[in-house]
C-alpha cells in the first residue's frame, strides 16, 4: 500500500492545505473550475472543499461526456436501434440517459436489440458475427474515447466489414472550455485541467486560456493530493502574477499528448461546424463526425434520422450545473424528483456527473453548513 499512501498521506494533505491557506490573499475570492467529472468525484468523495480556505470555491465543469449528450441525439440513436435489422451497441454509461421519449433501457425493454459493450472493438466483433444485421456503435466521449472509435473504423475498413457503422457523438474539450469562458454568468480564476483527455491532446491546446483569457490551467491527476497540489500551483501562479499552462500529472500526461491517437482521429473524423451540447446549447467546432473518406461507416449517412431538437425538461437545470453557475443541490428537483434511479437530467446519470457525485457522497454546500 505504500504506493498509494504517497498520494493520500494525511500529513501531506494537511501540510498542503496549510500552504494553500498561506498562499491565499484574504481580501480576494478565488473560483477554480475542475473540468473533468473524475475530479468532481474525488473532490466530493474526499471532502476536499472542506480543506480549502473559505475564499476558495471549486465549481464543476462540463467534462462528463454522458452529461452533455442532448436529448435529440438519444432519440436519433433509439430511432436507429428500432430498425428491425439493427443491433445497437453502447457503453453501459449511456443506457439510462433520458431522451425525449425514454432511454436505451426503455427501448430495449420495448424490443430493440441494444447490447452493452466494453469497447468499440467488441461492437466490431458483433458485426463480424452477424453479417446479416447492421451493427451500429453509439460513439460517445471526449478525446479520451475518440481515438478508439477512429481505430475501430480503420480496422473495419481494413477488414471490409460493411455492416458496421458508428453513430458519432464525440465532443471536444477545448470548445467546451471556450464556451464556459465566453459565458457571461461566471467569473473564474483558473482551471484544474482534465487528466485523461490531456493524455491524448497534450497540454499545448490549453495555451489560449492563459494567453487570450489570462487564466492559469493546471492539468491534474485524480488523487486527493493531486488536486490539492494543482490548486496550490494555480494559487502560486496567481500570487506571482503568472498565467500559464502547467502539468501536475506528468507521470501520465506527456506534454505533447499521444500523436498516434490524434492522427487516428484526424484520419477518420472531421470537425462538425456546430454541435448541440445538453444545457450549453449549440457550440461551433465542438464535436466530431465521420470524415467523408469513411462515409460508409457513418450511421448518420446510412440512416434517415429525425434529427429533432428536443428541449430539456423544464425542471432540469443541468445546463447551469454544467456551466458551474448552479451547485447541484440548488436545482429544484435535486434528490427529490431527480435521483440516480430516476434521473431527469444527465448529470444524475453518470457516476461522474456533478449531481450524482453530490447525491452519492451526501455533501452539501459549505455555506449552508457554516451558516
Amino acid at each position, binding site marked *: 500500500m505504500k*504506493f498509494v499512501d504517497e498520494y493520500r498521506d494525511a500529513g501531506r494533505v494537511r501540510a498542503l492545505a496549510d500552504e494553500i491557506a498561506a498562499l491565499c490573499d484574504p481580501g480576494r475570492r478565488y473560483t477554480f473550475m475542475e473540468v473533468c467529472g473524475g475530479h468532481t468525484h474525488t473532490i466530493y468523495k474526499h471532502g476536499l472543499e472542506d480543506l480549502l480556505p473559505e475564499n476558495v470555491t471549486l465549481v464543476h465543469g462540463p467534462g462528463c461526456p454522458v452529461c452533455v449528450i442532448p436529448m435529440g441525439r438519444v432519440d436519433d440513436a433509439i430511432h436507429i436501434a428500432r430498425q428491425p435489422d439493427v443491433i445497437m451497441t453502447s457503453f453501459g454509461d449511456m443506457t439510462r440517459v433520458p431522451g425525449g421519449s425514454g432511454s436505451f433501457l426503455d427501448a430495449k425493454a420495448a424490443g430493440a436489440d441494444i447490447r*452493452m459493450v466494453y469497447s468499440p472493438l*467488441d461492437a466490431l466483433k458483433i458485426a463480424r458475427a452477424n453479417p446479416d444485421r447492421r451493427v451500429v456503435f453509439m460513439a460517445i466521449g471526449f478525446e479520451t474515447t475518440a481515438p478508439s472509435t477512429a481505430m475501430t473504423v480503420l480496422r473495419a475498413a481494413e477488414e471490409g466489414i460493411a455492416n458496421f457503422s458508428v453513430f458519432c457523438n464525440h465532443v471536444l474539450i477545448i470548445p467546451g472550455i471556450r464556451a464556459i469562458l465566453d459565458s457571461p454568468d461566471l467569473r473564474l480564476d483558473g482551471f484544474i485541467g482534465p487528466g*485523461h483527455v490531456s493524455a491524448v491532446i497534450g497540454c499545448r491546446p490549453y495555451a489560449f486560456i492563459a494567453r487570450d483569457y489570462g487564466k492559469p490551467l493546471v492539468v491534474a491527476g*485524480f488523487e486527493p493530493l493531486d488536486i490539492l497540489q494543482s490548486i496550490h500551483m494555480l494559487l502560486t501562479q496567481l500570487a506571482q502574477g503568472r498565467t500559464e499552462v502547467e502539468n501536475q500529472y506528468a*507521470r*501520465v500526461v506527456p506534454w505533447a499528448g499521444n500523436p498516434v*491517437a490524434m492522427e487516428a482521429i484526424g484520419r477518420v473524423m472531421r470537425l462538425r461546424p456546430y454541435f448541440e451540447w445538453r444545457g450549453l446549447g449549440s457550440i461551433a467546432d465542438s464535436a466530431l463526425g465521420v470524415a467523408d473518406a469513411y462515409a460508409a461507416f457513418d450511421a448518420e449517412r446510412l440512416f434517415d434520422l429525425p434529427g429533432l431538437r428536443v428541449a430539456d425538461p423544464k425542471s432540469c437545470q443541468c445546463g447551469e450545473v454544467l456551466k458551474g453557475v448552479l451547485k447541484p443541490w440548488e436545482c429544484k428537483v435535486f434528490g427529490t424528483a431527480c435521483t440516480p434511479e430516476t434521473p431527469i437530467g444527465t448529470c444524475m446519470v453518470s*457516476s461522474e456527473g456533478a449531481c450524482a457525485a453530490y447525491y452519492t457522497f451526501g455533501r452539501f454546500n459549505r455555506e449552508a453548513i457554516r451558516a
Partner: protein
Amino acid sequence: MCLGIPGELVGYVEEQADLGVVDVAGVRRRINIGLLVNEDLRLGDWVLVHVGFALSKISESEARAVLDYLEGLGQAYDDELDALRGSDIS
C-alpha cells in the same frame, strides 16, 4: 467509460500485431495497443486502458495508485470491470 483502468501487459496476440493481453485486477483480456506503437512496450509494462485501448504507459506505482482510486469508486468500477469481463476483442 471515462475510467482508465491500469493493466499489466502479459502477452501478445500472434495473428494481430496491434493486440496485446493485459491482466487487469486478475482479469485477462485482449486489448489494442496500437496507440502506443512509439512507446517500446515490453511484457511487464503497465498501461492505462480506456474502452479496450491502451492510451498511456504508466509506472507500476502509478498503476497501484489508480487501482486503489478505482476500488474506492465502488459501483462505477464494478460496472467497468464487469464490462471488461464481457469483452472479447479480436
